[in-house]
């Protein structure tokens, strides 16, 4: 439709204030995620625009705006190296919005700005989706809607109510509140197509933390400094003891100097055989996105009985992988056995891989291994000897080990003797291989923290761990955790108790603040629900929920039909509530009775005119109906005095009319008989 006389009506002052307020919220959120100069740029232009409004300054001319815009574009290009990609394009939008503030004055400018700002504000969800971010986004949306309202509120009346702020904010809140049922229906029922539809910029998942596909000394201790949650686990039955909680991640076979790596997928190895004993443990894992393929599972997983995401598979060494990197929070059900025999037979190829070492390194370690071999020790005895060495010598478990020299294993075992789990696991496996015992490193997480408020287990990045598996005739691959020889507490009670120099650890992994910890546990329980039901709501959850609601299997296509019917029903209902003609008329008890009186008189042919006072109308009606004149005059006088009293009362305390007077009026109207 044609625009409505844009130029002639000034945009009210509220509009720019609402816009600046809500953009301030948005840019505060971005301050955590974009280069600092981008929010700083907003602050400068926002203040400039505010001063233009306040002091009636001139708007900057094109000769100033144009170079500024070019400079902004170049600044983004220099900072991010491109104008595309997640960070760069959001940065560019943010900078352009900041600058456009300087030419925002007509209704059209404002509406375009608000639409762009809606877009920018929602884009923060690409970076973070925490509850408080969601609340802040909602607040910004209310502000932007209020801006739209104040822009749309054009009038030639010059008197502006001082309440206008409140009215606009209230209306914005009301609109969004009324939109909520529609949101809920669409959220639950709109068919969730699993993305992506097109390629996603490479930088979209930077900043996700988790285990890597290789390990070097320092990797895991670095990860341990993060209190970020790796995953949460709900157990169907009792939670196993802490020392049983080994969460299996990447299995590393290949040694190359300090670095240990996974086997290549090109090497065809037979899947290791499993014999299980004892009861299985069932649990559900909610895995945080970490941009890798690992699906962590309790050692040892039985994937035949687990419900994993589509196209997940298990490698020959019992490592479970998804097809695509985990970029959204996912949930899967695991089925694991704590007691098992893995890989009873070892093929020649596997043996070669499990004994692989680079030549001519770490002579002292090789020497030690050679002594054990020359003593004719059995593999079990060699394992024992190594563990005894860790236990009896002055090895220290620490998050801050010294740097290792050129021969890292030698340096660690015979010189520094201070290390974190990756030092112990890698040197142990090195020692085993040197002594001819097939061995490999397993990385993953160990332990976790029970949240009593939700009865589930929280596993953090700080629980990251590395241990070893050695292959022994008739026993298969046996888990050996050399760290437990050095620091039994780490395995029994978790990392918080094991490290004396705990101030390096994240606050929440420490033992010092029980109140804080309890608060945190409550908060995490809320977060867990948020993750499960809001952030984790996907196609599978959608189908499962509908199945539960309707008690019938539902095809993907049926959701569309359900959605359309529900939406039509909802819209009809909402339209009825909002559009019925008497909507919103709330009569007070006095008025209600008076309306009955009017109805009665109207039936007798005397209708009250608009703007006719109660007394005037009473006089007219009394003349028209002389038989009821006294009653009519009495009612009119009483009603009028009650209305008057009500207006008086606004300055006093008694707001409601006297109960006695009210019942008197009621009685009088009831007794009024016309004819």
């Amino acid at each position, binding site marked *: 439709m044609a625009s409505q006389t844009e130029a002639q009506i000034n945009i009210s002052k509220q509009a720019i204030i609402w816009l600046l307020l809500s953009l301030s919220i948005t840019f505060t959120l971005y301050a955590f995620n974009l280069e600092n100069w981008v929010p700083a740029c907003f602050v400068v232009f926002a203040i400039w625009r505010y001063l233009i409004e306040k002091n009636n300054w001139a708007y900057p001319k094109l000769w100033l705006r144009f170079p500024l815009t070019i400079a902004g574009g170049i600044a983004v290009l220099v900072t991010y190296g491109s104008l595309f990609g997640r960070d760069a394009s959001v940065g560019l939008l943010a900078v352009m919005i900041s600058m456009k503030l300087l030419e925002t004055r007509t209704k059209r400018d404002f509406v375009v700005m608000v639409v762009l700002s809606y877009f920018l504000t929602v884009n923060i969800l690409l970076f973070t*989706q925490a509850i408080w971010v969601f609340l802040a986004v909602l607040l910004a949306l209310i502000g932007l809607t209020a801006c739209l309202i104040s822009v749309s509120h054009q*009038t030639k009346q010059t008197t502006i109510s001082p309440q206008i702020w409140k009215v606009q904010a209230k209306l914005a809140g009301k609109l969004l509140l009324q939109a909520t049922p529609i949101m809920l229906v669409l959220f639950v029922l709109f068919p969730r197509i699993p*993305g992506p539809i097109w390629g996603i910029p490479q930088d979209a998942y930077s900043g996700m933390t988790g285990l890597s596909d290789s390990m070097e000394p320092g990797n895991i201790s670095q990860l341990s400094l993060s209190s970020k949650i790796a995953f949460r686990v709900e157990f169907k039955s009792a939670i196993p003891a802490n020392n049983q909680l080994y969460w299996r991640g990447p299995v590393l076979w290949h040694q190359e100097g300090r670095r240990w790596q996974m086997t290549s997928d090109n090497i065809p190895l037979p899947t290791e055989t499993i014999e299980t004993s004892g009861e299985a443990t069932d649990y559900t894992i909610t895995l945080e996105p970490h941009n890798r393929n690992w699906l962590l599972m309790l050692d040892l997983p039985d994937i035949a009985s687990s419900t994993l995401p589509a196209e997940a598979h298990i490698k020959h060494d019992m490592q479970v992988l998804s097809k695509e990197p985990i970029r959204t929070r996912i949930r899967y059900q695991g089925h694991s056995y704590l007691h098992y025999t893995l890989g009873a037979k070892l093929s020649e190829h596997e043996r070669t891989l499990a004994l692989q070492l680079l030549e001519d390194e770490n002579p002292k370690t090789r020497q030690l291994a050679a002594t054990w071999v020359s003593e004719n020790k059995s593999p079990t005895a060699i394992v024992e000897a190594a563990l005894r060495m860790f236990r009896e010598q002055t090895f220290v478990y620490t998050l801050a080990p010294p740097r290792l020299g050129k021969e890292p294993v030698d340096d660690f075992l015979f010189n520094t003797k201070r290390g974190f789990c990756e030092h112990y696991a890698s040197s142990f496996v090195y020692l085993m291989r040197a002594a001819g015992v097939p061995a490999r490193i397993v990385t993953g997480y160990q332990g976790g923290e029970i949240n009593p408020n939700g009865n589930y287990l929280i596993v953090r990045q700080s629980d990251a761990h590395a241990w070893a598996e050695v292959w022994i005739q008739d026993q298969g691959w046996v888990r050996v955790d050399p760290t437990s020889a050095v620091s039994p507490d780490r395995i029994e009670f978790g990392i918080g108790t094991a490290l004396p120099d705990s101030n390096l650890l994240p606050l929440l992994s420490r033992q010092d603040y029980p109140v804080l910890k309890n608060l945190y546990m409550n908060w995490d329980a809320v977060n867990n629900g948020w993750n499960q039901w809001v952030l984790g709501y996907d196609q599978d959850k959608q189908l499962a929920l509908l199945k539960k609601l309707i008690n019938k299997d539902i095809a993907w296509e049926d959701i569309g039909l359900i959605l359309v019917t529900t939406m039509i029903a909802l819209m009809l209902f909402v339209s009825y509530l909002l559009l019925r003609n008497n909507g919103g008329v709330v009569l007070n008890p006095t008025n209600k009775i008076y309306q009955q009186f009017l109805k009665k008189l109207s039936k007798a042919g005397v209708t009250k005119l608009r703007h006719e006072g109660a007394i005037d109308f009473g006089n007219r009606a009394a003349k028209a109906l002389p038989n009821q004149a006294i009653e009519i005059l009495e009612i009119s006088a009483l009603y009028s005095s009650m209305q008057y009293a009500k207006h008086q009362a606004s300055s006093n305390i008694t707001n409601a009319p006297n109960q006695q007077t009210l019942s008197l009026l009621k009685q009088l109207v009831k007794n009024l008989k016309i004819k």
Partner: protein
Amino acid sequence: MAESLNLSSESSLKPDFKLSSPKTWFRTAIAIDSTTTLSRRHIYILPTRFGWMYGLLLIGLLTGSINYSISLGFAITFLLTGLGLISMLHTWRNLAHLKIEAKRANPVFAGQQAVFELAVIDDSNRARFSIFAKFADEEADIQDVPALDESIFRLSLRSQKRGWLKAPRITFSTEFPVSLFHVWAYAETANQCLIYPNPSLRSQILPSADADGATGQLSTTQGDDDFAGHRNYQFGDSPKRVDWKASSREQGLLVKQFQGEASSTLWLDFNATTGNNIELRISQLTRWVVDADAQHLRYGLRLPQLSIQPSIGDVHYHQCLTALALM
């Protein structure tokens, strides 16, 4: 008077059907008893260009949410979708069920802006905001209407010819609260404005006063001798009477006033005007009425079917002009 009323309605109530114009396809709320209601049937709604832009925003957010699998993105996209749908209802109900009551329109001379007053009334106990009202190509008046109250809209329209000017179809519209939808309705009110004839500019000089009202005698000095003071310029005053010197000192134009003018009686006769064109002759008579009133002369008006006895004062003045307008 009654006869001349009929005469005039012929000219102003010519049927104005334009079947080719799509605008006539829309329903129009027609006044009954001076009040008309913009009921459900009269209200139309379409998205504004901002509405389409908002739609693009929603599509963008939805594809983004699908592409990046952001569940919370879906939630906010749907919240904004809901906002759009709800705003549609709010915009609609901001205009619906308003009552329009025709108020007065003061007479003006042909060629001047006729101002029609309308009371826009809410009786649904709902405050209305930013209601636009306008004639097809004229400027809009924009007002808020408080709940259970009324606001007076003033719509102006340039008048063309003398007689009754019926208010054309009025377009009421609103985009409140969020400018995403344009809601409009057409209404025809019972408003009409009396348009006086345009006073002739190239005036013949006022006929001289005469006891029996003989006309045709022209006098150059009539009534111009006893200067009595100034009054403000009124439309129709002869430029000769403007005191330019005094006007340059004061704000606005001042017209010289003369004493003793009212004492003489003057008959303004249709037959005293010359020419074949009736409109020009009426225009000339109008000029005389205006001038005579300005000079406080006592004057009467003689038309072919009607004559008004000499008198002075505002009531008489308007009576004469009305007679001329409807002749």
